[in-house]
């Protein structure tokens, strides 16, 4: 079912604005990531969708129905917490069965559904165990099975893999994507990990300081960022001739061409296939460039050498608001400063 958040405002206390007039449409059947740094309001938006927080103003609709004042119980949602929220005193089976037992489903139906879900999340062997006997990844799979048991209209995941080891996280991401491709439940995933958002979701809403900066497919937000913040949050950036660029979009040569900037090679770091080059620009700034091993060999780069930097056109198509100070200060650039003024 589609979810619509319309003009949502939420403050915590007097000063902290968690959400500032946020509007977002989550299309039916999509897997949308709310991506942003901590304090950007992404979890608050998710919790408001779930009914675990109440917005100060604004409307939440699920499948077109206004549910702003509805309690979590009435929304038909599945929610997965970062720290699993496993029912510690129940077995894995009873955890998964909880929502069905609350709904007073016949025992045989509950048993069949729980068996099916335990199989889906690969925990059939663990049904009789307590959550504390499971690994973190297993506990989160149990929590997902528990949320899916009630056949929710929408699935809301709050940093579901944030507490897990890197390799378990990668495995669960792929698993979640597969699950979504099979079940097509409208899913909203909160994450601060841009790689996770790019890998798993089909739509990314990039959030910063209580606002949505951009909504688009992973390619759109990466290749055509609307603001400097989106540009800087979705991947590494370098500042060349006052423009924000991706390190892998920069090319180097020994002969100057129009618009090129002169620089000195400070460091060459070989990281397998990829080579990272640190440049001291003539304006005193440092810029990072990412080349392939072949490109580096062709140029024959060594430290202390002079090169010419050829930046591509800046990818930022919009302008960030004043809350881009960090990026602006780092770039220290005339055109950007004018844009702000």
């Amino acid at each position: 079912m589609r979810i619509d958040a319309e003009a949502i405002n939420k403050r915590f206390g007097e000063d902290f604005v968690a959400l500032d007039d946020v509007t977002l449409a989550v299309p039916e059947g999509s897997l949308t990531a709310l991506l942003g740094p901590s304090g950007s309001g992404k979890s608050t938006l998710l919790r408001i969708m779930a009914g675990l927080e109440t917005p100060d103003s604004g409307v939440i609709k699920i499948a077109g129905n206004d549910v702003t004042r509805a309690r979590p119980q009435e929304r038909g949602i599945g929610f997965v917490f970062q720290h699993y929220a496993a029912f510690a005193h129940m077995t894995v089976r009873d955890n998964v069965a909880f929502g069905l037992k609350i709904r007073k489903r016949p025992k045989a139906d509950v048993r069949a559904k729980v068996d099916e879900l335990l199989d889906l999340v690969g925990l059939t062997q663990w049904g009789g165990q307590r959550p504390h006997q499971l690994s973190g990844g297993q506990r989160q799979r149990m929590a997902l099975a528990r949320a899916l048991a009630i056949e929710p209209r929408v699935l809301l995941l709050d940093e579901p893999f944030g507490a897990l080891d890197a390799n378990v996280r990668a495995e669960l991401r792929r698993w979640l994507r597969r699950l979504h491709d099979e079940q097509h439940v409208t899913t909203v995933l909160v994450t601060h990990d841009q790689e996770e958002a790019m890998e798993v979701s089909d739509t990314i809403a990039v959030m910063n300081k209580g606002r949505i900066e951009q909504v688009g497919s992973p390619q759109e937000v990466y290749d055509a960022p609307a603001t400097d913040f989106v540009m800087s949050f979705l991947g590494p950036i370098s500042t060349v001739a006052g423009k924000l660029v991706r390190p892998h979009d920069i090319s180097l040569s020994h002969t100057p061409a129009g618009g090129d900037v002169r620089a000195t090679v400070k460091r060459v770091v070989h990281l397998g296939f990829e080579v990272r080059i640190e440049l001291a620009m003539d304006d005193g700034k440092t810029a990072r460039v990412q080349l392939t091993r072949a490109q580096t060999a062709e140029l024959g780069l060594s430290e202390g050498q002079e090169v010419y930097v050829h930046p591509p056109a800046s990818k930022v198509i919009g302008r960030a608001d004043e809350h881009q100070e960090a990026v602006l200060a780092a770039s220290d650039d005339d055109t950007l400063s004018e844009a702000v003024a």
Partner: protein
Amino acid sequence: MVVRPAWKYSLRAVALGYLALLLLAPVVFIFIKTFEHGFSTAWDYVTTPAAISAFWLSVLIAAIAVPLNTIFGVGTAMVLVRSKTRGRKILDALIDIPFVVSPVIIGLSLILVYGLHGWFGSWFIDRGIPIIFNPLGMILATVFVSLPFCVREVAPVLMEVGTEQEQAAATLGASSGQTFWRITLPSIRNGVAYGVVLTTARALGEIGAVAVVSSNVLGSTVSLPLLVKYRTQVPGPGGVSAAYATGTELAVMSLIVLVAMTLLAPQRKDAR
């Protein structure tokens, strides 16, 4: 810090010896004294009409004070930990009054409120419900003095468990009642059990506040601790030896509750 084994063991010996001398020895001594003339003598002392009446009065007091303070304790702990209202701080301070005020003063204050010349005393007496110098007053006094135990045991456990499991239950469709019975209560049951044990021990053992509001008539308003005190002042065979037997009876009752609660709420390693 590196501690040499010799030091470590002598420190342990001192600590254990201190506890044994202070806590264990008197209790063991009472047990020995109780049974020095055989089990049947002790049994006779705890089965006199006055002793049986005192036993049932103590059971009645505990049977009313413990459930009342447990329900109140869990509810108040929920308010203290979960609510953000301003009254919370005042409530927090009020709960400790029975801890900081002498039980005798609590007994006296009950006389002031419910006694013959007290604020509500005549209202109750006119309706045939005398409180002071009656079992009802002793129950009130016990409820008062044993009130904070459950709150103070449950609140920290409730804090540690957090609200995520309850939120998860809500998203899965559980009403607040279902969430309380199926999620909250089972996850704090160790705290509740320990609160019940402490409340019971205090309810059975309370003497100060109870003595003030009791008429000290054997067979009607003398609970077990009052009987112990009474018997210690009686000369002869019905005196101190009988008091030891009653003391042992009290200790056994508290022990039974402790064991029962340990069986009902076994300690688990998976607090979360």
